């Protein structure tokens, strides 16, 4: 059981690291720029 508990927290730490690196790299702006413009592909005409 201890192993399972550890794996969940290790994964959490790993993805927290991903998140921090992504934020520092400026990916938040990439997501925002895509999300605030109408996605023609999503609508089915792009």
């Amino acid at each position, binding site marked *: 059981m*201890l192993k*399972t508990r550890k794996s969940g927290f290790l994964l959490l730490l790993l993805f927290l690291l991903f*998140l921090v690196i992504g934020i520092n790299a400026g*990916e938040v702006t990439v997501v925002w720029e895509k*999300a*605030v413009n109408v996605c023609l592909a*999503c609508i089915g*005409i792009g």
Partner: protein
Amino acid sequence: MWVLRRWIQAAATVLSNAYLLFPFTRNIYQGKLKSMCVPGLNCYSCPAATGACPLGSLQTVLATVRPSLKAGNMHIGLYVLGILGITGSLVGRMPCAWVCPFGLLQEMLHKIPSRKIEIPHWMIYIKYGFLALFVILLPLLVVDGLGYGITWFCKYVCPAGTLEAGIPMLFLQPQLRELAGWLYIHKIAILFVFLALMVFIRRPFCRTVCPLGAIYSFFNKASIFRMVHHPDRCVLCKECYNHCPMGVKFYEGANQPDCIRCLKCMQESCKFGAISYEIAGLPAKGEKGTSAETP
């Protein structure tokens, strides 16, 4: 618990689509919240959407990874993967049951009285193909002369995008109607096929196609919140399977990839206490222990 889940599903749907000024602006929300990915499948081109779709965002980053790297920007999707991974590490596939608007729609349509059909088990693996091909490989590898790919899943498959954005945006922006052609018809057809299937099949989109559910499913075995099966108490009555919105045979093992942790089996189906959950290895309140768990 079942009523509570319905309320949380409804609240999540409203919060994910809380921009109510769109009838006046005739456009989508463009505020800062749009930089945050919501945990469920909710198209960011929905006029009322307040957040970004994690699946659309992931495809976008992958489709533009080459020009980004060429320009010296390390935009390789770590922000979106981080959000998905944190959610998955904490609760596995639970967002599908509790906060996904498209999941709620599927459950509501399945309530329509009709003959119910079960899908073959192998079909649940199709979604991993959609994830690998339409979300990762095609956006990454099929690029134009400048190195830009496209969001293949959004463009050719996603019925949530058609329902939440495709139909409303054509009402709001009449100039878009002239651009709607065969692709629009194709996407409308996919939407209506799934809407029909939802009446007869339990969550057909989640189980066979949804790449977001496929991503979360990878975390089910290792997440901090986990389901527990007590074989010593289980009488194999299969009531958990009969009531499961995902058609999971819980008695064959806890934390299967398609378990969305709705807790319906635990709360409503099992009369023998054979199903419980644990958080960080600690059994839920009232449970004796987790030593009897089926892996």
